[in-house]
């Protein structure tokens, strides 16, 4: 039965292959199809006749060929399908200190905005304003912030301990924790500028639609803002035949025999050779000193 089915299939394949090649043999139809396929928009305004008429000037064809697209003004579609989550944060129309910042929403912190643990105690206990090494119970707030401001930089530079607690600017304006970027931008103005326009930080959810960006403290832990080094995720598989020998040296760092490094280069080669273990056999292969570079002496 399967034999019969195979024959039937082969027969059908043969006849349809003929059918396909007959279709592909008509070059004009192919060309027509190819022309119609290039639909990049705005191709009409490129005058190829005028270009070929300029015989004396060297002509550099546009990179996208005949279907060069015009740089048209972009109008975002009214409805974007990407179902952005709603954070109930009023979008800021502008970031006052920079011109023409596109409107953005800052993703609020996941923590309860009403929870200010400092004030849990410090509404009863008077704060010690002295700059000192923090002991318990404050040792978890070890401040590793500010390379240049060590010692001058203290809890109350940013924290407001009056009332319910929270943040305050250097001028004393009170801020919510979700407005931390206004606090950070007092010193980090360059980063703040880049962040406001989108060259620093991260836009989440989508490149289109509402511009939702992460707050500074979403990525930088405020008391130790530098990123910690960590282990990278695994890299690509090394293809067969490209495995690195045990004493691999990057190409740029290999000692070159042409630059007077003869001795060390030979030593490096000797180090490479005993792969299986350093026994008598491997030792035999080491060229005795003075024999290999006799021409130099």
């Amino acid at each position, binding site marked *: 039965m399967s034999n019969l089915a195979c024959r039937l299939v082969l027969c059908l*394949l043969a006849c349809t292959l003929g059918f396909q090649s007959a279709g592909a043999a008509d070059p004009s139809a192919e060309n027509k199809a190819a022309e119609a396929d290039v639909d990049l928009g705005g191709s009409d305004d490129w005058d190829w006749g005028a270009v070929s008429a300029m015989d004396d000037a060297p002509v550099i064809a546009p990179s*996208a060929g005949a279907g060069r697209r015009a740089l048209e003004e972009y109008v975002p579609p009214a409805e974007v399908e990407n179902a952005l989550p709603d954070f109930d944060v009023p979008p800021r129309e502008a970031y006052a200190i920079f011109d023409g910042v*596109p409107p953005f929403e800052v993703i609020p912190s996941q923590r309860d905005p009403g929870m200010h643990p400092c004030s849990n105690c410090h509404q009863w206990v008077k704060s010690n304003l002295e700059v000192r090494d923090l002991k318990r119970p404050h040792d978890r707030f070890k401040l590793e912030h500010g390379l240049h401001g060590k010692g001058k930089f203290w809890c109350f530079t940013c924290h407001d301990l009056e009332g319910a607690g929270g943040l305050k600017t250097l001028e004393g304006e009170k801020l919510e924790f979700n407005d931390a970027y206004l606090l950070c931008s007092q010193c980090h103005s360059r980063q703040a500028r880049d962040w406001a326009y989108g*060259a620093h930080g991260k836009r989440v959810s989508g490149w289109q639609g509402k511009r939702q960006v992460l707050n500074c403290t979403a990525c930088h832990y405020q008391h130790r803002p530098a990123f910690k*080094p*960590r282990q*990278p*995720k695994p890299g690509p598989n090394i293809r067969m035949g490209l495995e690195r020998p045990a004493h691999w040296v990057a190409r740029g760092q290999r000692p070159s025999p042409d630059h007077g490094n003869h001795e060390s280069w030979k030593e490096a080669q000797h180090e490479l050779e005993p792969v299986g273990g350093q026994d008598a056999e491997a030792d035999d292969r080491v060229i005795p000193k003075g024999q290999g570079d006799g021409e130099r002496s």
Partner: protein
Amino acid sequence: MAKDPDDKRDSGLSDSARRSFLKGLALTGGAGAAMAAGGAWGGNTLSDTFADFFQQHYQRMTEDEILDTVARIERKAKRRYGVELQCENTPPQKGVVFGYAINVSKCRGYRDCVHACVKENNLSRDTQYIRVIEMDRDDTDLHHGDHYYDRAEVPADGKYYLPMQCMHCDNPPCVKACPVEATWTEPDGIVVVDYDWCIGCRYCMTACPYQARHFNWGAPDLPPEEINTQTHYLGNRPRPKGVVEKCHFCVQRTRKGRQPACQEACPTGARIFGNLLDPNSEIRYVLEHKAVFRMKEDLGTEPKFWYFRDE
């Protein structure tokens, strides 16, 4: 690409004749499959095997043919991996050309993007689209870079990290090299591959100066429970054996306004993606205000992929 139903491009034979012929084949095939043993067509039904064989180039398919093809891809995935896949055909948005910028000062070589990409795009677990190259400071020669680096901690002293992937060139040498036009530039600037039209000659891999293309030497090794079921015909649908694939700017996400998976995964915010035609986009700000460079710019490939650093 959205197809106009009136825009039928025949290649010699009339379309209706061809379609009825195919329908006849499918009926015969169905009968044959019922008789034949289960795995005779590689886990496929005979009708689907025939339809696969006669499948047109993506750009030449009519809307109906695309829908048939996409449904067939979903059926095949169900048979092969046992997952309910959703294969889409989202057309490009008008007035959008995608571009990418990477802040080299911020990249710390964690390779989070690499693995987010592997998961999102249903890559065979031995393939990675993104290569993060570890470079010596004061050195820009890519030959001295190492993308196999494996350390206890990154960033290492005296090194910087340079992620590379498909640059989606505006003048792509891979597209010119393809003998069967299985790869082309979409109107939104994404260089895509029709995996079903690719013949696996790998000319494009040789032509690409960024080594961005990867070849499926075997059937992709994909754990079924990790398959991303939101797929696109030109993007992350499961690929067959013996075809070339590469980064497609997460076409299944970005055409719906979402960020690509690598941007979403980056823990340092080094990656900036957006519409080059939108003057208010982040990427336009970077291009206009930062000192950007492109990889191997002297080759004239016009990559839509820039690198910059904090001043």
